[in-house]
């Protein structure tokens, strides 16, 4: 009875998801995370789930280890080598400040100035060597670095994306001096221009590489000890998997491992349920993460700002985060206006109702006061009950400042937090040229299903999907994801046009060759992954812009597209995004990209179909919508495929609570998803 499991390590909990065997329900396990050694919690989860290592064919994993190391600045001690004259690029950034208003705040570069050295060399923007690499200088510096106790040496020279020879040679020289160093060159991490962003990305990779390498080795060793002999697969920020043994060399791609898994799962489940355009919303304890997906593919961001002056330019699923979660704190500002978040009570002390010492009212407390969360639900291992009275007192106090009673204040808090979430949803869809009303919403995370119905109403979304295990969707995402490699290269040349001279313009056959080379490289990488794939998919993209524009559009193109079809594809995309086009302006190909995906056979991982009738409710309780309504409460486990119900109703399940508002309709589809619709 072979099986596979997905395990997601989050900040508070480590979740395990095992697809149902022989038509049975999936197995879901939550254990506390172990920040001292995250792999211990992974083992705890496997043991708690009673997984038999000899029956396990694949272990799939999402982890916050890279993100946490970066936030807590626990990465490696690094040295940075740059072109002479440019060691401060990392520290200077692009001339900015942390906040638009307010003049305080500092930036701590990951490699401080005393560990950044300059090497004599210079290459121009066409890749021509202007000053040859000073190899003796590199060797002398390498000898000095031996005394500096660094684990990683990062090499980032100007224009290395077009000619990497100096970076490659420097790597060889460094490895000769000390083979134990992790050496990271900027061109190996990102083959694109923009020196600050490329250097920052290389530094993040180098800073995390030793830690992620060790973590992955440790995890594989523990799994082996336990009896699982194969390689584990780890989720990357782009939503694709990579073998754990290669995770170190992709450390900079691990920053969004867990959230990406959730989005991948949500997008796939929705697509199989018949929704091509979906907004996914993951509401946890401190934040709300939004992403959009078309045809099962989540949209991606090319650059993500992790912190002030800390950009990473690797493909990451475009997940926007706002500080609106269950622990977000409600307060009244100086102007007398109610605000919710971004300050959060976190998981400790947490909401007042959890009785762990929280004193400020949170979103979860509002849900408790309004009867939306089961008052008899036990919190934590001690089995203590929710402190509803404590939460109510806090809202009474908050309400005094607003001229509202406790319940109205709690309702106001939900309205405000829902508005903020809806605003973020609107921004991410509109920015990408979409109308949110054309989308279905997938609600997950501990808080998503509590707020999803309200967001649906607020955004006038036609339908909402709540997957079977919304609280462990990230773990499930690991199970259904594919293996993926991204390749990119800066071109920065104008497309040729009939009637215009060819001088200085791109010879499109060069682009074709570049795509072919990227395809070969991606397929080579897949071969190195040494896995069985159901199929291999290759997609080519060109980042294009009108001459002079900075912001480019990523356009899906064929590997052998000619100049005219490239131009047409760009203009069509431009019209979709901006509702206009700019006439006969020239078009520039900025970057060529190829994505090579090894598709895994994951159909069996999704929940099976079944036959269902309308079950009896567990009971009922008073829940506050526009007014207090005695509302039936169902158990999610009782809702079998085919069953249909009308709101208002509450659906309790171990990992969350689902609220369905009056006038909404819910049906259970063949895959056991709740499909919620409104008139």
């Amino acid at each position, binding site marked *: 009875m072979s099986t596979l499991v997905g395990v997601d390590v989050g900040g508070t909990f480590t979740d395990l998801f095992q697809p149902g065997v022989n038509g049975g329900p999936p197995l879901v396990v939550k254990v506390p995370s172990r920040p001292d050694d995250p792999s211990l919690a992974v083992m705890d989860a496997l043991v708690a789930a009673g997984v038999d290592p000899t029956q396990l064919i694949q272990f799939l994993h999402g982890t916050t280890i890279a993100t946490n190391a970066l936030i807590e600045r626990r990465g490696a001690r690094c040295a940075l080598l740059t072109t002479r004259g*440019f060691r401060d690029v990392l520290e*200077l950034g692009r001339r900015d*400040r942390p*906040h638009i*208003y307010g003049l305080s705040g500092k930036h701590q570069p990951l490699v401080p*100035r005393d560990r950044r050295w300059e090497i004599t060399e210079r290459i121009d923007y066409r890749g021509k060597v202007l000053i040859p690499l000073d190899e003796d200088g590199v060797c002398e510096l390498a000898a000095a670095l031996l005394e500096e106790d660094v684990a990683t040496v990062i090499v980032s020279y100007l224009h290395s994306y077009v000619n990497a020879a100096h970076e490659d040679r420097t790597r060889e020289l460094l490895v000769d001096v000390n083979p134990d160093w992790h050496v990271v060159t900027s061109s190996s991490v990102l083959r694109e*221009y923009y020196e600050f962003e490329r250097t920052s990305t290389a530094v993040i990779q180098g800073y995390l590489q030793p830690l992620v390498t060790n973590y992955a080795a440790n995890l594989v060793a523990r799994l082996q000890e336990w009896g699982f002999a194969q390689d584990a697969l780890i989720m990357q920020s782009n939503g694709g998997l990579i073998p754990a043994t290669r995770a170190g060399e992709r450390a900079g791609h691990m920053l969004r491992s867990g959230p990406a898994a959730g989005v991948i799962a949500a997008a796939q489940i929705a697509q199989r349920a018949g929704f091509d355009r979906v907004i996914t919303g993951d509401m946890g304890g401190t934040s709300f993460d939004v992403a959009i997906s078309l045809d099962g593919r989540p949209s991606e961001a090319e650059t993500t700002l992790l912190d002030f002056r800390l950009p990473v330019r690797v493909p990451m699923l475009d997940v926007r985060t706002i500080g609106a979660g269950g622990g977000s704190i409600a307060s009244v500002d100086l102007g007398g*206006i*109610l605000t919710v978040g971004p300050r959060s009570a976190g998981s400790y002390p947490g909401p007042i109702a959890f009785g762990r010492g929280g004193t400020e009212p949170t979103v979860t407390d509002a849900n408790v006061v309004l009867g939306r969360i089961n008052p008899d639900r036990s919190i934590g291992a001690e089995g203590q009950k929710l402190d509803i009275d404590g939460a109510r007192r806090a809202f009474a106090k908050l309400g005094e400042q607003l001229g509202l009673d406790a319940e109205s204040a709690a309702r106001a808090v939900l309205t405000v937090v829902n*508005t903020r979430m809806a605003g973020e949803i609107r921004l991410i869809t509109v920015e990408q040229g979409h109308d949110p009303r054309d989308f279905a919403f997938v609600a997950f995370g501990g808080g998503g299903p509590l707020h999803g119905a309200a967001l649906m109403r607020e955004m006038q979304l036609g339908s909402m999907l709540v997957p079977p295990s919304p609280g462990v969707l990230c773990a499930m995402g690991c199970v259904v994801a594919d293996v993926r490699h991204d390749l990119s290269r800066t071109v920065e040349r104008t497309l040729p046009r009939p009637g215009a001279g060819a001088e200085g313009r791109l010879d499109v056959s060069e682009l074709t060759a570049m795509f072919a080379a990227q395809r070969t490289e991606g397929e080579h990488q897949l071969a190195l992954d040494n896995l069985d794939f159901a199929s291999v998919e290759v997609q080519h993209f060109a980042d294009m812009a009108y001459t002079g524009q900075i912001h480019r559009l990523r356009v899906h193109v064929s590997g052998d597209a000619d100049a005219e079809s490239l131009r047409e594809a760009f203009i069509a995309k431009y019209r979709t995004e901006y509702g206009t086009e700019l006439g006969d302006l020239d078009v520039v190909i900025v970057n060529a990209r190829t994505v090579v995906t090894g598709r895994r056979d994951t159909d069996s991982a999704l929940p099976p179909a079944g036959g269902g009738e309308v079950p009896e409710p567990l009971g009922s309780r008073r829940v506050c919508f526009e007014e207090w309504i005695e509302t039936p409460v169902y158990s999610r486990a009782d809702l079998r495929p085919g069953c249909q119900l009308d709101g208002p109703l509450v659906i309790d399940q171990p990992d969350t609570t689902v609220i369905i508002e009056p006038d909404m309709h819910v049906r259970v589809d063949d895959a056991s998803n709740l499909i919620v619709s409104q008139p």
Partner: protein
Amino acid sequence: MIDPITLSVVRSGLEQICNEMDQHLIRSSMSPIISETNDCAHGIYDPRNGETIAQGAVGLPVFLANMQFAVQSVLAEANASGGFRPGEVWILNEVYRGGTHLNDVNLVAPVFVDGELFALIASTGHWMDIGGNAPGGWNPEATEIHQEGIVIPPVRLWEDGKRNDALVAMIIANVRLPRDMLGDLVAMSSAVQMGERRLRELVDRYSQATLGECLVELVERSERQMRAHIAEIPDGVYAYSDTIDNDGVVDEPLRIAVEVTVAGDSMSIDFSGTSAAARGPLNLAANSTISTCYVALKHIYPDVPINGGTFRPATVHVPAGTVTAAEYPRPVSGYLEVANRVFDVMLGALAQAIPELVPAAPFGTIGVVTVGGVHPETGRYYVGVFPYPGGYGATGSGDGLVNGTPPISMANFVALEASEHRYPLMFEYFALRENSGGAGHFRGGDGTTYKIVPRAPLVISVMGDRHDSVPFGLNGGGPALANELTLELHGEEWIPAMRTKLAKQEIGPGDSLTASSPGGGGHGDPLTRPLELVEQDLNFGYITAESAEEQFGVAIAQRWSVGGHDRFRLDPERSEQLRAARGATALTAGTH
């Protein structure tokens, strides 16, 4: 009274609309200065008085209140010519009627609901070129506005939903990058039209009456909030003055003087004593002076939402005929330098009243280096702009930021590699400028230094300041280093006569330009800076050994080199003794 929930929802709804307009323009404009450095802003305005209702989150601070003045000019003009009609979009860049400099082009559109004028929407964007006799518009030798570009008074660009293409052709024929500027005009029109649609949706949802009530309430609340802050400032009169090196034409310093009077929950700001209007382009329109004062207040109290009520508690008096009240035909392309100084003196005055909230002076110059010419590879005209990055002043609780964007701006520096692709030039270095931040218990942030080497002949102009008068420290903190501009022409070093200003200098291969920007002022006595921080400053190369000894009063025990970097260890005991001795000297001197 409007309920608190609706109020909160409407407020974020309005801000959201402005944010969407910001994003729309940033992503679709042709001018790198908009798309890469966000040099634009969007807002929604009250159609009765033109006051701000809401603004976007990334808009340039200097446009903060200024757009309100531009909107008011359009409002007056529209009222004088039959009022607004549906389907209109107005355009203007006229400086003395709500503009900043000619490159900042404003579009203003009325939003009608049920046939009634409900709001005005505006977009401001910085065009890469607006004509005039210097590419990019920053001409330090201009002596009247007409040398700086085409002047567009408030006129209808769209009427009855139709664009006036004759007007567009007229404008576009007078700028250097016609196709790019047309692209920006299209993008800006499309941004205001999108904003109009979105605002109408919001009105549909909440009704005109409810929304109207919310707007009144929001304005009152911002006013109340700002008054609450001002009431905390001790009553009194706080004066400060500082100077500008010169106006680019006449080599004499210009004085900017301010007197801030705080009485209860109101503040009055008076620029009497400021120098008379400049002959060169360092003039600031009165509306921009007022706007800059507001930016300073908003930096000190960032929590107050911006709308027409926010700054009602602060009245600003700008005497006519001064450098802070430009009138026709005074040139203004160096207005940002004056605005920087207005900002600095506001800090200098308020620091006396609320020292815990006010940082020392930031680097204080926009210092724009403009390059232009015909690119030898494409044969096309290009204009490139490299603004100065510099350091921020230290605060009472921390060091200043290194390499910040000017507080009145949000504009970034373009990527060096992208610049080398676009323009026929190379950077020889781009580095943190050591020792440039003021000494102090907390150090001012450091500025930068960079060197540009042309690959082909090009014309270079510089509009900067802060060479003769440097950014000040506070509370015993030291000043920052001065702005330095150096050229190498035909093998010889050359410093422009106006030090920080240079008009249309031709330079070519073999020549170079080096720009070194000031840091920010220091805060507190440098002799009290913790020794471990001074040691780190030395090891990071932020300060020199001489500065450590002289300014920070420390003794160096050991100095060695690792791969060419100097490393230091301080002698803590001797350092304490030296500092004590200097402290004692200061004390003794003080008693005589």
